[in-house]
Each structure stands twice: as C-alpha cells, then as structure tokens.
C-alpha cells in the first residue's frame, strides 16, 4: 500500500476548492444541518460565508453532539517545551533560525524539575515540544526524554519535526502515545514562502507525515492548519479532507484536530487572512458536525472569554497555564517564548472554571499496556 494522502491531495486545486466553498448557499447549510451523517460537501457548507447566520444553530447541534459522545468532561493536557534550537526558518515562529534569541535544550535535571512542577499541578497527559535541530534534539534525545518521564505520565504526546516511519516506531515502542503535526497551510506556494529554509521547506514530506505515523501504528495523530497564513476556509477543508482520508486508511488510530491562530511572537508576522472569533467558532462546530468522535483541542492561544465559552461548543481537550519556552515553568521562566499565550490563568483556575460550568476536568485517561 504505497498510496498516501498526497495522491488524493494532488487531485484538488486550491482556487477551485475555495470557490466551491464560497458558492455554498443557505439551502446547502440547512440541508447539512438537517442530516445525521454528513460528508465533506456538508462541511464546506458549514465553513462557507452562507453559514454565518446559522452559527447559533450550529453551536447548539455541536454542543449536543459533543455531549452525547464525550459527556460532561474535558481532557486536560499540558505542553512542555524541551528545546528552542531550530534549523528551520518559519516566518511566523519565535524559534525561527534567524531570530537572535538565546538557544536552550533542557538537560535531564532540568526536565525533571519542570516535570515535578507539572505533576504537582495534577497533569498526567503531557505534550513534548521541540524545534527541529537534529544534532541536539533528534530522535535519540526525544527517546531519552520519553524514557526519562514515562513513569510519571500516563500519556505522552509530542509535537516535533516530521520523522521517518522507523523512527516513529522506535518512539512508540518507548511509550509515545500521540504525535501532533500541523501542515501549517495546505497552500503549496504559500507554504514555500513561509518555510524558505531547512528540512521543513519540504511540503510533501510534511504532508505525508500522518501516513508514516499511521503505518507506524501510533495511537493518535493530531492534525491542523495554522490559521492566518492563508484562507482559513480552504485550509479547514483540506484539514477535513486529510482527516477523512486518514480515518479510512489507518482505522486503528484516533485523531485530533487543533485550531491554532497566528499569535504575536518576537519578530512577528501579521496574519495574511484574518480569522475572527466567529470564524473560529464556525470552524470548530463544522468539525464536530462532520465527525462526532474526533477529538477537538484548544490551547491557551485563545482568550479567557473565548475559552470559557468554547469548552461547551465542541472542544474536548484543553491545556492550561502553558509556557512556550524551554524551562518556562521553573527552570528559566524569563526566556523568550515561541508565541505569547493569551489565557494566562492557572491550572487551578481553569479547573475551577470548568467545574463551575458543569464540566469535569479529566487528568488521566490512558494507560500503556505494552
């Protein structure tokens, strides 16, 4: 089976796809709302301009559907940045190679200090994050980090550079549960502009990362686009197309979708295409209405008010108190961040907010049996 997502992706044209989304009518939206099993054409209707007046209805349906499948719970996770060393140039990222910031990769001792802090907060699901610097934070470093902390966390995910299948297999063997890898944008030319240098400039290698993960047998794959680089409607559609392809192909794997919007950072980039709060809610609801089971994740990039409300509208996993700099929790809180978070409330406050609004924060929902 040598087919990958790229084979399917290449049959689509960006402009035609966007035009077909924009051509959806109120009637298409109403039809999509009334169905129980929905397809990608329905998804297009939900993310189209024609769906704007239906946002409240979409939100109600999304809330109901999410509650039916996930109940009144929210899975809690926290990111831990291990390194800001990076050999890529990404125009929107604080860790971009050309940014003159002090570089740091956590030692074992430092990792354990950060871990102790996060464990005390109650976290059992952790997301390890690095830049792409193969000599210092390649597979051996990541594997070592997983082995170092795996007795303390029930569930370990990572968000690092795309790897080869055999490398994923090695890390999964070491108890890696999930890998998040965002395409940033599915617009091939725009992607090139934002990733002019480094291994990340290879669009196709990144595009087929989820296939390599599926073949390696990872438990969960997280995908998404960085909204703001290109038109969010088209990027949402291609994310949904990717999701549906992966679900059909790697049927033993779970999937999650994230919704990062461009945030300020040192050396910042202004969004090319703005995605408003309303647009973001529309997109989240559209994913839920397309798929009742997919995990939808929300980071601290968004504001307090937004997060207080969105946890009821389709989101199923949430981070809190995140630091986006290596050592940010205790080792070196003052170092430069990858991006500024928006919701700075403590884990305790977030847990309290969830409980007050009738949601139970879940800290542990996995056990590795291998």
């Amino acid at each position, binding site marked *: 089976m040598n087919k990958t997502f790229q084979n399917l992706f290449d049959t689509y044209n960006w402009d035609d796809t966007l035009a077909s989304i924009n051509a959806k009518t109120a009637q298409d939206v109403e039809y999509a709302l009334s169905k129980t099993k929905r397809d990608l054409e329905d998804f297009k209707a939900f993310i189209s301009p024609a769906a704007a007046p239906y946002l*409240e209805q979409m939100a109600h349906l999304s809330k109901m559907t999410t509650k039916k499948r996930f109940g009144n719970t929210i899975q809690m996770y926290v990111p831990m940045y291990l390194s800001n060393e990076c050999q890529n140039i990404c125009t929107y990222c604080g860790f971009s190679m050309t940014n003159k910031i002090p570089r740091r990769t956590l030692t074992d001792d430092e990792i354990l200090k950060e871990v102790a802090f996060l464990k005390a907060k109650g976290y059992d699901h952790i997301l390890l994050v690095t830049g792409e610097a193969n000599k210092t934070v390649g597979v051996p470093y990541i594997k070592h980090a997983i082995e170092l902390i795996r007795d303390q966390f029930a569930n370990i995910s990572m968000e690092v550079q795309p790897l080869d299948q055999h490398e994923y297999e090695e890390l999964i063997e070491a108890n890696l549960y999930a890998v998040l890898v965002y395409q940033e944008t599915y617009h091939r030319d725009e992607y090139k502009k934002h990733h002019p240098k480094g291994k990340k400039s290879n669009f196709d290698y990144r595009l087929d990362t989820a296939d390599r993960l599926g073949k390696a047998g990872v438990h969960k794959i997280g995908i998404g686009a960085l909204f703001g680089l290109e038109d969010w409607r088209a990027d949402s559609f291609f994310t949904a197309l990717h999701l549906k392809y992966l679900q059909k192909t790697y*049927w033993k794997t779970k999937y999650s979708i994230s919704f990062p919007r461009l945030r300020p950072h040192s050396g910042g980039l202004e969004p090319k295409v703005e995605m408003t709060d*309303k647009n973001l809610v529309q997109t989240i609801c559209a994913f839920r209405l397309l798929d009742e089971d997919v995990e939808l994740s929300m980071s601290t990039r968004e504001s307090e008010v937004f997060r207080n409300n969105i946890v009821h*509208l389709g989101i199923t996993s949430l981070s809190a108190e995140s630091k986006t700099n290596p050592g940010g929790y205790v080792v070196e809180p003052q170092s430069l961040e990858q991006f500024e978070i928006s919701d700075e409330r403590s884990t305790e406050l977030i847990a309290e907010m969830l409980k007050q609004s009738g949601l139970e924060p879940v800290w542990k929902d996995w056990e590795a049996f291998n």
Partner: protein
Amino acid sequence: MNDILNIAGKKFNSRLFTGTGKFSSNKLMSEAILASESELVTVALKRVDVENEQDKMLQSITKPHVNLLPNTSGVRNAKEAVFAAQLAREALGTNWIKLEIHPDPKYLLPDPIETLKATEELVKLGFIVMPYIHADPVLCKRLEDVGAQCVMPLGAPIGTNKGIKTVDFLEIIIEQSNVPVIVDAGIGSPSHAAYAMELGADAVLVNTAIAVSQNPVQMAIAFKMAVEAGRMAYNAKLASIKKHAEASSPLTSFLN
C-alpha cells in the same frame, strides 16, 4: 444513467448481483437472470459438475454479459475454502471467488476467523476475493487490510427474506470502507434492496427472493428497478427527516 460500479478493475452497469440456487428449473433461472440484467451471477461450485463441460445449469447462464462468480458454499474452514477456490479457478476459468465459509449447516452463518484466514491466502494466490461475512465493521477493515476486493456483509440471516436488519452496522461499514460494500443475504423484497442502496451500499446480491417467488421473472425485473431507484436516490441525496431544534439560551452571544 446510474454510475458504474468498479470491482477490482472490472466494470458493472448493473448493481444487482444474483444467484443460481432454488429455482424450479434451469430454464426459469436463465430467464430470470436475463430479466434482472445482472452481470454477476454466483454459482455454488458444489452444484457444478466440473468434469462435464455440458453441465446444464452452466450452459443455461452462459451469456456474453453474465460473469460467473463461483462460491465456496459448503466448505467449513479456510483450508477447504482455498481448495474449493482453486478447483473453481481450474474448472470455470475465473479467479473471482465468492468466499462463503459456514461451519454451521443450519443458519449458514459465516465464520469470521476462517474467512479472514482464507481471504489472506487466496489474495496471495491471485484471487479476487468477495467474502460473505457478518455485518462486522472491524472484520471488514481487517479483510480490506489483507486485500479483499470488496466485502459482502449480510442484511439478515441468509434465506430469511427479513430485510436489512443490520442497518446500524452496515452504515458504519459503508462509511469506513475503501472497497465496494455489497449487501448479501436477507434481502427479501425489492424495497429491502432499494433501502440498502439508499444507505450507500455499492450493490446487493439477491437469490432466494427471486428464485422462490411465484413469478421469478417479474420479481427479477422488480429487483432490477428497485436497485436502480435506490442507487439513483442515493446519488441524488435524500431529503432529510425534519427535526425541530430546541430553543435554549444563546451559545454564541459572547461573540458580539
């Protein structure tokens, strides 16, 4: 008119597959199959006299547009199935095989474990395998993984004419499948066939309901029309059942 079905590179205009069992005469069988316009007709290898090229039943369905689909009915395990498939390939000159393994002679329910085993082996031997199975979504994916060219989940126990009793599972199978889904067994009336097609099944296989009807030729035509109507309705996208939205406090007012 309707879109063309493709299984393992072979194209079918008709999405109604039929069988050869239970007819009162070969003549009636032949007429019914012709009237159904079916292009794939399954025949139990155990009923064919493979030594005799003049086998009457085979002769009566040998038509240019009718493809024979030998089935392994009667075998009880993977080993017997592989043997039967090889025999069929030699005798009938086709590498297509409808895999039926039912150790239980009463309900003829398919054995999922032996079916998976046999499918894997037959695919390696170059067969186009069409496995008859329970409406089990996981089994369907496992069969797809080992190279089955389609899956044939049952709608109800074979021969019962009870209709699409496995609808919830068929819907999952249809949603997930990368290979054609053919609903096999249990379809007792044209409305059942139309319903299966409306759900998105790629084809249906009907035998008993045609063969045992008072008028098999008329019934074959009725099934042909029902399958076409169901497929057309699926492609045209069914109007949905109206649900009333419940009024409650606004969820998106925080955006204003």
